[in-house]
């Protein structure tokens, strides 16, 4: 019998790392603060004690060089996992990720694989501000040769991290700080979840909502409230950003005739636009409404909680956008009464006390 229990997503990630390291001695873990007392929000706690300091490493503040060093190790028989506490820091490794990791296999005509996992965390709230709260999935997804995933559930967080570590290609594994604290059913044993498949989280007839990462949480809340009011939306958790599982999305849009994409990032040049383009190219005739993107305004995240109040679209914003877009006559009061967020807008859970 499969043993399942509720654990937080941070614990699920930690368990995935531990099990991947147990199953394959080539797996190694490195990052700024990996063995420190905070253990990357608990996702790496105790791993150096368990696996020793020749498999679990802290590292110098040298993101690009260390990424290259991990690529060098990956092409020499190791399977490194490198972690950055914020995805913003990974911008310093764009050279190594884009020029080397993504292309090493290709440019040498398939002779060498790069089994590398880059864990990056999207920050939000509590004043993370312009340089600690970017959601850069589209930048990574633009690059052929990388795989890019954004799990939203604890089950997927564990299964996709194990799959990423077993994969022979560079995988950018994007976490969301607001998902770390959410508890979820997670099996005890190791298992993998495909890195290229979206999943329908809730079926519905009136519209397809494709959501990424934390926006899946908001989309499911919105869908539940809308269902009470007679609007039946399908929620797809995209899970993978590169490749995009357009098949699942297009198949859904063909049934519902409406597409709304809820992204954690900016609208311009974002992955939501890519989904809209893909659906328009292949299922234009099925669309009864123009596609809609619900994304961040084209501004870096401000810090003051007074300024972030309307920056992130939440379930209520999303539900309003969907209802209006579908031309429904539900009243705003109906939505507000169901979705008004009583937790302060800048923390993931009421108990969150900062600082990071």
């Amino acid at each position, binding site marked *: 019998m499969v043993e399942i229990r509720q654990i937080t997503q941070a614990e699920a990630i930690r368990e995935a790392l531990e099990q991947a390291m147990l199953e394959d001695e080539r797996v190694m873990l490195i990052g700024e603060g990996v063995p420190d007392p905070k253990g990357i929000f608990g996702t790496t706690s105790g791993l150096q004690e368990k696996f020793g300091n020749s498999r679990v490493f802290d590292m110098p503040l040298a993101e690009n*060089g260390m990424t290259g060093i991990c690529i060098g190790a990956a092409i020499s028989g190791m399977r490194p996992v490198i972690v950055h506490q914020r995805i913003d820091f990974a911008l310093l490794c764009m050279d190594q990720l884009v020029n080397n990791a993504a292309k090493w296999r290709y440019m040498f005509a398939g002779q060498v694989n790069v089994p590398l996992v880059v864990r990056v965390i999207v920050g939000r709230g509590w004043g993370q501000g312009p340089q600690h709260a970017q959601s850069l999935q589209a930048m990574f997804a633009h690059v052929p040769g990388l795989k890019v995933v954004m799990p939203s559930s604890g089950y997927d967080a564990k299964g996709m991290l194990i799959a990423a570590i077993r994969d022979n290609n560079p995988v950018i594994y994007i976490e969301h700080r607001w998902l770390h604290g959410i508890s979820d059913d997670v099996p005890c044993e190791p298992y993998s979840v495909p890195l290229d498949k979206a999943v329908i989280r809730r079926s519905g007839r009136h519209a397809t909502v494709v959501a990424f990462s934390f926006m899946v949480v908001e989309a499911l809340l919105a869908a539940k409230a809308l269902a009470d009011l007679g609007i039946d939306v399908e929620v797809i958790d995209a899970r993978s950003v590169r490749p995009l599982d357009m098949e699942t999305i297009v198949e859904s849009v063909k049934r519902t005739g409406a597409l709304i994409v809820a992204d954690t990032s900016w609208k311009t040049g974002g992955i939501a636009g890519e989904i809209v383009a893909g659906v328009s190219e292949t299922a234009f005739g099925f669309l009864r409404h123009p596609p809609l993107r619900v994304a961040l305004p084209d501004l870096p995240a401000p810090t003051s909680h007074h300024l972030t109040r309307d920056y992130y679209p939440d379930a209520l914003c999303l539900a309003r956008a969907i209802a209006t877009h579908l031309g429904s006559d539900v009243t705003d009061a109906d939505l507000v009464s169901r979705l008004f967020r009583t937790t302060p807008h800048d923390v993931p859970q009421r108990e969150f006390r900062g600082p990071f």
Partner: protein
Amino acid sequence: MKNDIEALYRDMLRIRRVEEAIADRYAAQEMRCPVHLSIGQEAVAVGVCAALEKKDGVFSSHRAHAHYLAKGGSLKAMLAEIYGKEEGCCKGVGGSMHMIDLEAGFLGAVPIVGATVPLAVGAAWAARLRGEDKVIAVFFGDGTFEEGAVFESINFAVLHRLPVLFVCENNLYACYTRLSTRQADRSIHGVAASCGCNTMSLDGNDVLAVYDAARSAVSDLRNGSTPYFIECATYRIREHCGPNIDDELGYRPKDEVEEWKAACPVARLQSRLDIQPRDRLADMEHAITQEIEEAFACALAGKTPNQTDLEGYLYG
């Protein structure tokens, strides 16, 4: 075997003749990619690689032909690659700036300067973690030494005492820009020493000096020493990129060019050769020419690579 003067001479001469042949045929417009020739700099490649064993690894960058050949990379695969053929070491995906021959321990060269320095450190790190007895050497230029990733790599290699041999070919220029307009007035090897490397600074056109330095460094590295950084003074005789001599552009002082031409590493070693009878020198030239002719013929006769194979190279 490798350490005898005749073998060092032969390896340098072979690289020189290969690159001269590339330059001679470049105008035919069949090698349709940038080429960065090492003519004048062969001693660094040959001296260092002679001190390495086959199991040791080498990385390089845009100016890689000499390093690749000195480490034992296949000449045929190299020329086929420059001609964009299926038989090339990257089946035409790479070209001159992307050399690889895993069999020979030539682990890769790519044109982003500084890109392979961390990879070399990572390969040495993996060797350490896997308990393999391997030294990894990485060649780069004086300009590349300005890249942040190089410092990041040196720091980590020293921190973990990894078996890395950093080889800086200081030819005084990055493209057309002289060292003194790019770097403060201090030595490159001095900076490496302050990072904790064992350093040596030497005449990079003296293949015996390079070989001796590399041999002692490699032997220390095998015994667990901190990384070595050797700075080799050398000079590129032709243009930065392309087949020609570009002295007429005037970006390098005339007397400097003449001085370095006179210090040609191949000619210098020839004067120290003791080959009797002298005919054997001609035989050597002849054998090299034949090998080169044959490799060019193979490259020209090579198969056209298939565009449909590209997608399969992306993910493994």
